[in-house]
């Protein structure tokens, strides 16, 4: 069990910056999720922690020890790869046993530990099979068992669920979280799926273009986004971001008018989540563009000027298109962002 410190980590590939100046403290036993769009440097960050990639600059510490020059095999981290990376020539039993053999765990302990790990991921019945004879979900669990069996200091998981179907993903998610709580191992989990991030994480790190955008608990990330990138990335559908001008405590954009704090001035972006909009009223004057019933809610898209605004409506809401409609914003849930995309915090 160990904490992880990243100090000004930089990774350059020639002229291309994969990860820029990243600093992060991960507490012991924490479940930290790196979240961001594809290509933002999540995998690179994780591989640097694992020791599979050497940072161009900066310091990596695990359990208080500088790890930059420590070989991957001596870092005592276990990683679950996106492609599972099971050894195709070995049975699942031998796969799970491999780290025990390589780390010199006494042979007498092997069997009990392998069965315990397999039990934890409910794979006990498949130990004799080769990886090729397992389904995606089973391979996934075999990879987890192999990571768990040697009780490492740190777990690293790189999009472990991205190859599974939606239903399986949900059940594996719960299983992973349960396991992490049970074992109390510091875990870094990479994903581009915000639902996974929100449900699993103690804290989320949002990345974009190799840089950290915001670090916080899922609640903080959701209700207190630091910039337009985070606001637009989290939530489904994500926050409405409307560009306009603010003057004298009023925000205006084509078809949109809303109150704003007096310190918000000039060209700004207003953010409002779909669930903080109500039908009726006059913050938005627009036309119904589309209605999407999903069963438990209905998503309504309103066209205000040229801007489409998403609204979460009651499940039985229905409307024809091109009908005039008014929308009210919850005034307590309005966010304002400056021209640089950074949040303008109220001074009241």
């Amino acid at each position, binding site marked *: 069990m160990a904490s992880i410190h990243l100090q000004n980590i930089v990774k350059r590939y020639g002229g291309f910056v994969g990860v820029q100046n990243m600093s992060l403290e991960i507490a012991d036993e924490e479940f930290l999720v790196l979240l961001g769009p594809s290509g933002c440097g999540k995998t690179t960050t994780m591989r640097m922690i694992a020791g599979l990639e050497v940072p161009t600059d900066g310091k990596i510490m695990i359990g208080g020890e500088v790890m930059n020059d420590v070989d991957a095999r001596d870092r005592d981290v276990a990683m679950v790869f996106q492609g599972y990376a099971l050894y195709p020539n070995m049975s699942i039993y031998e796969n799970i046993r491999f780290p025990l053999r390589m780390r010199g765990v006494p042979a007498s302990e092997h069997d009990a530990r392998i069965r315990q790990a397999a039990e934890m991921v409910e794979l006990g019945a498949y130990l004799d099979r080769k990886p090729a004879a397992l389904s995606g979900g089973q391979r996934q669990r075999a990879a987890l068992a*192999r990571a768990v069996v040697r009780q490492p200091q740190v777990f690293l998981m790189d999009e472990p669920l991205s190859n599974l179907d939606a239903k399986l993903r949900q059940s594996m998610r719960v299983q992973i979280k349960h396991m992490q709580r049970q074992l109390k191992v510091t875990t870094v989990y990479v994903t581009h799926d915000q639902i996974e991030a929100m449900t699993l994480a103690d804290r989320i790190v949002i990345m974009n273009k190799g840089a950290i955008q915001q670090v916080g608990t899922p609640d903080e990330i959701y209700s207190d986004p630091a910039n337009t990138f985070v606001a637009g990335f989290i939530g489904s559908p994500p926050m409405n971001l409307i560009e306009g001008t603010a003057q004298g405590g009023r925000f205006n954009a084509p078809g949109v008018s809303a109150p704003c704090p007096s310190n918000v001035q000039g060209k700004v972006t207003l953010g409002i989540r779909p669930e903080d909009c109500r039908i009726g009223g006059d913050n938005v004057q627009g036309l119904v563009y589309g209605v999407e019933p999903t069963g438990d809610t209905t998503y309504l898209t309103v066209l205000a000027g040229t801007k489409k605004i998403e609204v979460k409506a009651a499940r039985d809401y229905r409307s024809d298109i091109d009908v005039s409609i008014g929308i009210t914003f919850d005034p307590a849930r309005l966010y304002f962002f400056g021209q640089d995309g950074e949040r303008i915090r109220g001074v009241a």
Partner: protein
Amino acid sequence: MPTDAPSVLAKGVAQAAPIRPTQPRRRRSPALRKAFPYLLVAPAVAYLLVITLYPGLFAIYQSLFVVKFLTWTWAGADNYTTILQDREFWAALGNTAIIGGISLCLQTAIALTLAYFAYRDPLIRGWRIVYLMPMLFMPSAVAFIWKLAFNDGRVISDLLGRLGLIEGNVDWLGSIWLSRMTLIVADVWQWTPFLFIIFVAALQGQDQEIEEAARLDGASWPKIFWNISLPMMRPVIVVAVTLRGIDITTMFTNVFVMTQGTPGGATETMSYFIYRQGFRMFNFGYASAASVLMLILTIIIAQTVVKRAFHSGKS
């Protein structure tokens, strides 16, 4: 429905209409469809029949006769019964097994070792062609180079002498094992690169994530190679070594040029024996019988090896 007032939808369809094929759709008759794969491979099959099957069948036919130039006398299985009691035949078989076996083991081991050290090096990819050079030379030229190096030119004796390892000249053809060794060295030199290139390609083709996973599981590079990479490349090794093995059983050029079977037939391989029977002693039927036996033996061994290797790889 009024056709003079088309709806938006109908207009869309009307616009799409000209794109539809005006000719009748082409169909293949079921018979042609079934025959099609065979038609595709027909040229290759015809080529193979002419190149290998005809001479093969001819050899089998000829092996049943005593052939003295143009006179063929029916001999039945006589050639075979004589051969199976011919000490020179058995000696040639033994020599082929010894020289070929040692050579094959050596080149496989060397190629694997080199591949293990080299495959992670990006330079290897760029310079692949260099390693193929020994195979690109004309076999007889290579044989003459080695003949020069060992026997006539005494290059190797000279080199060893300068290193202080020996005194004077070594008579490479004077001893059974030295003579065999010269053949082995020549073959290893020429064919190790072939195996090396194949092994490197197989290793580079392996999923890098698996190696990384093993690394994080605490395995050293030699252990990764032994426990994971090597078992994973097993089918490639089996095929490459089998091909090489089949090729080695027909080792002829080097024997012909370098040793001519000396001393005392210790380096006479099967091919050289067949050549001697056929083209020196003109026992064509006898030579054919020997080559048929060799063919059968090779097929049996290759079949067994491949079948075993792939079968146990699966379970």
